[in-house]
């Protein structure tokens, strides 16, 4: 709860006014039945027209006040709840911006998105509800009970019986019904799972002619869902009739006992009528309260998911003092000193073991190794996307933790294996690399990444809109745009993580050529799959199971390194048998 307070700060006024207005509304409404009994008992019984009109006027006046109070309440609670939700969304989004890679790995992006959208909406709804019903219902209940007791204490004892009876029945219905809802949700997930699988496998289903098999499978889960839905909803719809029965039986009791009291002269007809209204209000409030509590318990899961994000400790931040030092990367020398790394501090095995490596400024390093050899992890340590578990990494002879993240990451450009472009024009996307880039710089970078030609082939050229509503580009084109974006940031160190896998070999060779021409001074680290695309590198790192097991030029490695030779020969062998 406390975690949420800061998000209300901007809307404090609305937050206080909304419940205050509810109090006014409740007071206006709660006296209405009593005024009505005035009309009957004083006005009608004593045939006093002035009393009737007077009291009636008061009733109408109070109703008008109530309307104003209600409109005000809704106005302020809308502002407070929606505003709160907006602040919460902003808070979550900003928090996610701070997340490190290992923070991000903990959540799937779909789940993060749901938390910021749906879960926040659910909380917003609960806040809205709280600012009205959660205050209104108990107040109504309390006031109505007080007035009922004041009218006739012994008659009011009926309320004392009705409330527990109703509360207990609702409790039992919900206790039986809620597990059904949980089961229903599980079965619903199962139904959705079958549909989802059917959709992604549509070619498999069709090519094996399994349409009927799928229908049968779906029919079974669908029927299971229906059965549980009937049971779950069947329990909940009991609540309303049961509550009505309790209410009506109470009314009968009031008519009976009240009737006797009227006959004995201790109660008046108008009072009996207002009493019936009060007991209706009391039981209705109780219903509202239980519904509100139910909504609360459903929102609890959402709240937990939101708090999980807010409470996540961001594990990579600027080191103290980094800002003051304001170190900049100039040369691009990279050094690994006894670096070990594992993703979870309590994980059993290191994914990188004892890495020692010095890369000279302007050097061109390639990294090769089978999947799972931690190639990506190795390069992701350099811009501090993950922090080393032990040892240290130095750039230009300073520990990378002494740089601000901004300075470090602006100078170290990493083209991720799983890369993304964003909706917007090609130019806007490239400018992610450097907001202030001139058109000439953009074109130069695109040329170096071999992207210029295909960009120019689009009718809108650099203004071509990418993304959902725009042109779709091929995987290879996307990779080239990502490379151009990275080059544009004029990094001292450029890292390509298997970034040309979808680019055909001829184009890849051209990219390599323009790199060696225009990016001579840039330290480059390139992860590759094929020996052919990396063998020209100054030095090649052979990574196996998180260890450097070979380091040297292609020729050296072919001679001295068994694993490298194996990779090389397997690719070479295919070539020779082919020839």
């Amino acid at each position, binding site marked *: 709860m406390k975690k949420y307070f800061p998000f209300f700060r901007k809307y404090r006024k609305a937050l206080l006014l909304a419940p205050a207005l509810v109090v006014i509304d409740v007071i206006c409404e709660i006296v209405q039945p009593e005024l*009505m009994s005035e*009309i*009957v008992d004083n*006005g*009608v019984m004593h045939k006093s027209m002035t009393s009737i*009109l007077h009291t*009636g006027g008061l*009733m109408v006046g109070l*109703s*008008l006040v109530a309307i104003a109070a*209600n*409109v005000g309440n*809704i106005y302020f609670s*809308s502002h407070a709840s*929606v505003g709160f939700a907006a602040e919460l*969304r902003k808070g979550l989004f900003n928090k*996610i911006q*701070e997340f490190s890679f290992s923070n*991000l790995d903990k959540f799937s*992006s779909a789940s993060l*998105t749901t938390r*910021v959208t749906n879960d926040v909406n659910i909380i917003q709804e609960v806040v*809205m509800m709280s600012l*009205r019903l959660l205050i209104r219902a108990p107040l109504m209940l309390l006031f109505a009970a007080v007035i009922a007791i004041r009218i006739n204490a012994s008659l009011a004892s009926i309320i004392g019986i009705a409330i527990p009876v109703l509360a207990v029945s609702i409790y039992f219905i919900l206790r039986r019904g809620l597990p059904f809802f949980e089961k229903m949700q599980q079965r619903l997930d199962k*139904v959705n799972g079958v*549909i989802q699988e059917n959709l*992604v496998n549509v070619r498999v289903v*069709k*090519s094996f002619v399994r*349409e009927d*098999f799928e229908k049968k499978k779906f029919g079974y889960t*669908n029927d299971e869902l*229906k059965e549980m839905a*009937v049971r779950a909803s069947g329990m909940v*719809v*009991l609540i309303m009739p049961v509550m009505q*029965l309790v209410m009506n*039986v109470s009314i*009968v009791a009031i008519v*009976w006992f009240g*009737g*006797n009291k009227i*006959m004995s002269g201790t109660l008046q*007809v108008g009072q009996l009528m207002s009493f019936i209204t009060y007991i209706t209000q009391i039981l209705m409030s109780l219903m509202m309260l239980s519904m509100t509590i139910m909504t609360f318990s459903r929102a609890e899961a959402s709240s937990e998911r939101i708090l999980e994000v807010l409470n996540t400790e961001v594990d990579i931040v600027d080191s103290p003092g980094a800002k003051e030092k304001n170190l900049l990367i100039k040369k691009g020398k990279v050094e690994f000193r006894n670096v070990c790394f594992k993703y979870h501090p309590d994980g059993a095995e290191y994914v990188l073991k004892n890495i020692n490596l010095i890369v000279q400024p302007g050097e061109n390093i390639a990294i090769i190794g*089978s*999947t799972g050899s931690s190639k990506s992890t190795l390069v992701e340590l350099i811009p501090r996307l993950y922090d080393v578990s032990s040892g240290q990494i130095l750039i230009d002879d300073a520990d990378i933790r002494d740089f601000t993240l901004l300075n470090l*990451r602006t100078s170290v450009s990493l083209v*991720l294996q799983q890369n*993304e472009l*964003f*909706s917007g024009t090609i130019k806007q996307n490239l400018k992610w690399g450097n907001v202030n880039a001139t058109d000439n710089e953009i074109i130069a970078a695109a040329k170096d990444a071999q992207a210029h030609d295909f960009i120019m082939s689009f009718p809108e050229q650099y203004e071509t809109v990418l993304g*959902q509503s725009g042109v*779709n580009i091929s995987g290879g084109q996307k990779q080239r745009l990502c490379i151009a*974006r990275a080059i544009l*940031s004029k990094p001292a160190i450029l890292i390509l993580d298997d970034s040309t896998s979808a680019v*055909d070999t*001829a184009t890849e060779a051209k990219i390599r050529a323009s790199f060696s021409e225009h990016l001579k001074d840039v330290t480059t680290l390139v992860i590759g799959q094929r020996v052919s695309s990396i063998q020209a590198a100054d030095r090649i790192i052979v990574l196996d199971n998180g260890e450097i097991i070979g380091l040297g030029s292609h020729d050296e490695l072919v001679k001295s390194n068994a694993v490298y030779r194996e990779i090389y020969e397997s690719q070479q062998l*295919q*070539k020779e048998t*082919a020839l």
Partner: protein
Amino acid sequence: MNGQTSETSRLSPAGLPGRHGHVSVEKPKNSKRVIRRLWNYLSREKVLLVVIIVFLLVNTATTLAGSYLLRPIINHYILPHNIPGLIKMAFLLLGIYIVGAVAAIFQNRLMILVAQRAVNAIRADLFGKLQSLPIKFFDSNNHGDIMSRFTNDVDNVSDSLNTSVMQLFTSTITLTGIFVLMLYISPMLTTVTLVIVPLMLWVAALIIKKSKNYFATQQVALGAANGYLEEMITGQKVVKVFCYEKSAATEFEAINYDLRDKATEAQYYSGVMMPVIQNLNTINFALTAVVGGLLVVFRGLDLGGLAAFLQYSRQFGRPVNEISSQYNSIQAALAGAERIFQILDEQPEISDAPDATVLGHVNGNVRFKNVSFGYDAGKTILKNISLEAKAGQKIAFVGSTGAGKTTIMNLLPRFYDIQSGEITVDGVDIKKIQRSSLRRSLAIVLQDTHLFTTTVMENIRYGRLDATDEEVIDAATLAGAHSFISRMPKGYQTMLENDGGNLSQGQRQLLNIARATVAKPAILILDEATSSIDTRTEQIIQKGIDQLMQGRTSFVIAHRLSTIHNADEIMVLENGEIIERGDHSSLLKQKGRYFELYTGQFD
């Protein structure tokens, strides 16, 4: 799939996320037709519906009668001090209420049964329809969109059938009943109601209209915010790499505050209706009390009548409120139903020709004769393709992305029908073969390796449902999957969940190959089956694939040329045309495009 993705989604975007709380107020385009079709589902339970209506009438009648009885109780028993009569009336009242409660319970539970059966049938029809739709539908519609028919849209319909419909019905009948009884008690007093109620309805209509507009603008803002969030969070790692965090926060702040302002208005208008109508009803109650009081004094209205009348005028507000608050959810349900029916109305795969044959034993001779094809009319992707694969031969396709390789593979199983030319299997035009028979004769191994949530055994058996356990294990052994399956905790009985999430890409591909193996197809299609796998793993899989290809006609699309050099014929595709063909060595000698591709790869 090249080409298809550029087709924009033909279905309108379905309910955006954020459905909770405020139902979107989309309007169905043709409410009458949608209602008629929904009725088709409900009317399957005609008997139950009649029973429900009976219970509903009983329930409503008891509510009305209960309040009405106040009149005789006050007039004839309480005021004249008739105690035995009061006892009798109290028991009568009790009896009426119990009957009412029982009727309400039956009515509600039966309605849920009817509603859930209808929803169940809708879901089944929708899924069944999907099975009959051509691949084109799935290629040109976003899966998320299709899913939301099953989730959001069916939910909306289900909610509405569960509660809204009954409530609308009950409310209308209650309103009518109250009105009639009011007239019966005192026509004069009823005029008060007649003044206030139109006012209530007018205010309700006004608010609904306003809130509809604001919801529409809110929905747009919500869509923008959700879209932005999804994109940024998906690309969060890129955001980090480029230090874009601050810019993203600034961009989002603007979008977020825009949403806040729109949502506040929408929330305000949707929230304000219920209390305002309730208060208007209180005014109605007050005026009734005044006028009623005066009528008792000057016009001799009976006191019991006034009491009953006041009860009714209190009750009046609820149905009015309910009718207006159901408006939005019924609109949403109708819009959802319309989107569901839109899919049910989609054109299914063209049915088999009446004289279509069933293939017996398939040898696997495949011929393409002057085949031309485009996904959209007027945009030809494949031009005049002719080729022949004799039984048991291996045909490979190479070429840059977008050259049309995958498209060719879509034609043989008739995922798409060609526009001109002819494709034959064992000399028979595939258009003259029953689709199911044609597809049974071939198997496809794709690049994306999706698995089903079931055991390893059943995943492989998917290739041929009547395969015995031994046959499945044999197939797995042949494909080279047996050893890793045996190492799994429960072997072949291990459950795969989340699309085989705990398996590596290579392992999943081996399962796919085993699945194709167990199907014993005469023709095999491999679409980049090893492209996303490193070269060492690829060698293992290649063994499995080679085993599978033995004795079968196979078509192979490969990204890495090393996997296809032993093909009987290699087709080099460029811009939808075969520009070179021949076996590996003859193509190399030509020193053309293939030579370029090949040498570029290895030097």
